[in-house]
């Protein structure tokens, strides 16, 4: 177990600034998920931590030891690759024991550790097979097994589930979570899938364009996104953004978008007076749009026309046209809304997000 620390890390490939001033601390035993769209630098960050890539500037610490100049083999880390990277000419057992054999572990110890890992991952019956005889899910288990036998200080996962089908991905997600609970080792996990990030991480780091946009617990990231990028990246369906002007009317604050007036209580936007007359962006998650007539804020309800209704099994996505160019999405479990009908809705004022349109930063 160990702490991981990035201090002012910069990485430049040719003329490309891939990582810009990354400062990040992953605590002992923490499951840190780095999430972001492709090309955001998350895999580079992981490869730098593994030692497979040099840093241009900055320092990396594992267990308080500066590892900038330490080769991957001496960093006491284990990595699970996106494409599994199993050695094709070795059996599962040989694959798993490769690192231990390299370190001249006694035979009994190797056997014990391989069996232990195989037990945890339920691959004991596959130990004598070759990688090509395994299914995708089994290969991924072997790749994880190869990491476990090492008893490393830090586990690194590079999009390990992205090559699996949806059902298997779900299974493996739970498996990895269980593994973390059992081993309590520091894990750094890279993914572009925000659902994976939300479900696995005890800490989420959202990255974009080589910069950390926000870090925090999954709930913090979901409930209080610090900028428009994080707000739109985390959560499905995506958060709705409504641009409008703030006005004060009879001591009440409203956001005016076209002819629609969205009431914004002062407790959810304490700085409202500073923005009086200015444009802001209101963010509201589809789950926070109230369509249920019994719960609606009747006084400030907004009427609009339903455009499309999308049935998703346990719930529906209702697309509501609030102006000619703007459609927002709401979710409901009531199944009584038909397309092309007039409805009324209000917002869940506790979960309103307001952003500055210029800086795109959160202002409430």
């Amino acid at each position, binding site marked *: 177990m160990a702490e991981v620390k990035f201090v002012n890390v910069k990485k430049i490939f040719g003329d490309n600034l891939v990582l810009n001033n990354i400062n990040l601390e992953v605590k002992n035993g923490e499951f840190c998920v780095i999430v972001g769209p492709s090309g955001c630098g998350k895999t580079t960050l992981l490869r730098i931590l*593994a*030692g*497979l890539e040099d840093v241009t500037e900055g320092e990396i610490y594992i267990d308080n030891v500066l590892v900038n100049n330490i*080769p*991957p*083999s001496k960093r006491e*880390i*284990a*990595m699970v*690759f*996106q*494409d*599994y*990277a*199993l*050695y*094709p*000419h070795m059996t599962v057992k040989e694959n798993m024991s*490769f*690192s231990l054999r*390299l*370190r001249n572990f006694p035979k009994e110890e190797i056997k014990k550790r391989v069996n232990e890992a195989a037990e945890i991952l339920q691959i004991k019956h596959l130990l004598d097979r*070759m*990688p*090509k*005889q*395994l299914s*995708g899910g089994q*290969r991924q288990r072997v790749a994880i097994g*190869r990491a476990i036998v*090492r008893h490393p200080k830090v586990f690194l996962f590079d999009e390990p589930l992205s*090559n699996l089908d949806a059902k298997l991905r779900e299974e493996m997600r739970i498996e990895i979570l269980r593994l973390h609970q059992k081993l309590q080792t520091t894990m750094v996990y890279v993914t572009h899938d925000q659902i994976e990030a939300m479900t696995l991480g005890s800490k989420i780091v959202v990255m974009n364009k080589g910069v950390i946009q926000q870090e925090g617990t999954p709930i913090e990231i979901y409930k209080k996104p610090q900028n428009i990028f994080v707000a739109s990246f985390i959560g499905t369906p995506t958060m709705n953004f409504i641009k409008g002007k703030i006005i004060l009317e009879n001591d009440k604050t409203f956001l005016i978008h076209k002819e629609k007036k969205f009431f914004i209580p002062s407790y959810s936007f304490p700085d409202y007076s500073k923005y009086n007359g200015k444009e802001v962006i209101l963010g509201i998650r589809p789950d926070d749009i109230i369509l249920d007539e019994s719960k609606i804020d009747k006084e400030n309800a907004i009427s609009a026309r339903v455009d499309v209704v999308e049935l998703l099994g346990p719930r529906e996505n209702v697309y509501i046209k609030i102006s000619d160019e703007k459609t927002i999405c709401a979710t409901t479990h009531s199944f009584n809304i038909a397309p092309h009908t007039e409805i009324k809705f209000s917002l869940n004022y506790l979960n309103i997000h307001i952003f500055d349109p210029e800086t795109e930063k959160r202002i409430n």
Partner: protein
Amino acid sequence: MKKSKIKSILLHLLLIIAVVITTYPLIRIFSVSIRPGDRIISTDLSIIPKGATFLSYIKLFKETYFIKWIFNSLIITLSTSLIGVILASSAAYSFSRYKFFGRKIGLYILLFTQMVPAGMLILPLYLMIMKLNLINTYLGMIIAYSVSSLPFSIWILKGYYDTIPRSLEEAAMVDGANEIYAFYKIILPLSTPALSIAFLFNFTMAWNEYLVARVILYNPKSYTWTLGLFELQGQFITQWGMFAAGSIIITIPVLLIFLYSSKWLVSGLTLGSVKG
């Protein structure tokens, strides 16, 4: 059903014709090699001639340096092939995995050397070997052959390494190996198909080579078999029986090596290592 049967018959017919065309000369040479001396230039087409005898074979071994020629050829060929594969495997790895100054140009130069006809290289090769004082030596021949076969082997191996995912070496490095160990333990075992192709190419090239050998070797005792067989061709009389017997014997090593290495020539060894 009927259509596929006709197709199969036609296909087999075609294959049989191809087999006959390719094996017929070999069979004829064999039949010449076992003809008795007085019937060497007969027009008889029977495979086993009347009065068949292995006298030509016995004479070949007894009256010429044939065993020595074969031995010379084997030493030169095996050394060339091994040196070629060892050097090419590491050179190709650098070309495949590292970015360095002159990498691209280097690859093109290697390719360019393959476009120069062998005849053009004979004089410079001869001068080079002579300056090194290696005329009429094994080493001189091995250097001359390696120089001409290395570029091809490097290209073949480089192409093959390019198809092996980098993540395999990275996994090995994270597992505790250094780059040389990862190359030796992971990349080389996976490259056996390409290594055997390079080895076979070097082997057949060096085994059958005549022109360079003609220039570098002058002592009949240090001849390779290609030069040796031509020794049998006199100004007034050519000993066709021994010539044919020699030709049959020299196919055996190549045949054995092809048969042995055919099992390494299977591709798809990397199947299952990474998602594909």
